[in-house]
């Protein structure tokens, strides 16, 4: 039997949804507004999008962000999945295992300023030049945790009887892993990877500390634009970033449905 939700609760919920979504919807709408400064709707135009293509720094920033995001996601996905497997399957004392799992959360709760600042110090001491490489290293570091946490959660909840059945039927560990475990784990790996890519693509704070010459990623360029221009080009680039993120989520969702073929066992 369903209880009715009190009217005021629905009202608050509705207001909250509006609060969460309206600001973003508004800048999307105004990215097509044919007026440089006015907050009133004047007419439709694609001028601000056109202007984006005249900015080499933006295009370069987009390329760099995709590059750094791609590399760091792939590396973090591999490392993070392996780590999750080790934590879940490894034979260790209870205490050590829960300590390791707890430590896994530390990169996630550490404030970005602290992560950025400490990495800057280590790069300075070790003489590692600041640039694309240093940014990628930093992104891999914080993304490993995200992937590992997501994959670990899936592993803990996973049914191992299929694997055991496969091994009873004659498959060795590696085959069982490849044919049984990975397909089941695949959606979690994708979810962790998507989370990692989004974190990397969107990162401003950590990147701003460890970036060097000519390594301005998209968020760094956009940050400069947000502070400086009032013209709707910022609305346009914001909308494009939203579209890219939405496409990514969609693609990841599709990939998660299409699991790698399980094939026959043995």
């Amino acid at each position, binding site marked *: 039997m369903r209880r009715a*939700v009190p009217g005021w609760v629905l009202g608050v919920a509705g207001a909250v949804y509006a609060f969460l979504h309206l*600001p973003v919807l508004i800048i999307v709408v105004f990215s097509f507004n044919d007026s440089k400064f006015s907050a009133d709707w004047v007419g439709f135009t694609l001028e601000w999008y056109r202007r984006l293509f005249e900015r080499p720094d933006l295009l370069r920033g987009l390329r760099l962000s995709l590059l750094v995001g791609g590399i760091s996601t792939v590396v973090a996905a591999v490392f993070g999945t*392996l780590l999750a497997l080790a934590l879940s399957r490894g034979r260790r004392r209870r205490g050590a295992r829960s300590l390791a799992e707890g430590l896994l959360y530390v990169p996630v709760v550490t404030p970005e300023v602290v992560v950025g600042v400490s990495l800057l110090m280590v790069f300075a001491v070790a003489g590692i030049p600041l640039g694309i490489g240093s940014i990628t290293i930093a992104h891999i570091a914080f993304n490993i945790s995200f992937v590992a946490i997501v994959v670990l959660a899936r592993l803990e909840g996973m049914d191992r009887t299929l694997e055991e059945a496969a091994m009873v039927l004659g498959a060795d560990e590696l085959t069982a892993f490849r044919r049984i475990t990975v397909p089941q784990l695949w959606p979690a790996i994708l979810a962790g990877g998507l989370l990692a890519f989004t974190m990397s693509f969107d990162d401003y704070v950590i990147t701003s500390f460890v970036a060097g010459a000519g390594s301005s990623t998209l968020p760094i360029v956009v940050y400069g634009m947000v502070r400086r221009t009032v013209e709707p080009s910022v609305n346009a680039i914001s909308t494009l970033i939203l579209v890219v993120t939405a496409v990514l989520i969609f693609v990841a969702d599709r990939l998660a449905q299409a699991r790698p073929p399980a094939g026959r066992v043995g």
Partner: protein
Amino acid sequence: MTGSPRRVLLEWLHRRPGIGTGVLAAPAGLWLVAFFLVPLLVMAAYSWMPRGIYGGVEAGITAEHYRRFFEPLYLRILGRTLLWAVGATAICLALGYPVAYAIARSGRWRRWLLFLVILPFWTSFLVRTFALIFLLRDTGLLNGWLLRLGLAAEPVPLLYTPFAVMVGLVHGYLPLMVLPIYASLEKLDPALLEAAEVLGARPWARFRRVVLPLSRPGVIAGCLLVFVPSLGAYLTPDLLGGAKQVMVGNLVQSQFATARNWPFGAAVSFVLMALVLVAVLVFLRARDRAGAEG
């Protein structure tokens, strides 16, 4: 393929299970040690060293940076940051609980409503912050409506105020409050509520006595997820506060930019880290206790 190399490898792994685990964990473990743990240690070392004249450090050990942090000026910044974080958490709780409750009772729409709550989380934080700037500017949309509706004679200063920073914090972290509360409400057995109703409790009492205590783990988790990032907030006070509101995160950044005082920045970072870890421990303890009682 059942060739020998594979068999040999597997048999070897069988005999030493620890190595298998070690190999799996090694890449991630090494990376995290090198690029997470070691930096924190380096930062610790820096925070005990005296500052060079032009920035950088000199040889030596000094506690002056930690001592300096306990001067009234910096304690005030810390106190203000704590107030911001508590305020943001309280507002998110007040706004987020009804949302989570509504979603939990929504039946058919549940998936969509959840998706709509999660969606802002996937949206770039920078973009969301810019959206608020666009709205709150003197010549922005909100002031435009206020003027048009005659509610104000001239633009109300909304941006670059403490109000704007709070709006930014709440806007940024509200989804993180809703999701855990929803998760714990979802597990709620309707039978309990029915039993309460049968036994004669009125709606508000039912809520207070049954729903609220059982959702406490979710509430605590949600508070943690809002409080901790708010402590370390940097972009929000920077962009929405007009560089006039200094939170601990901004203080750290300024030591590495304007002030070129790395050791002091390192010391402040450590205090921030310590606060965060204390908060996490406190919240986790409270959550486990609440979970046990439920």
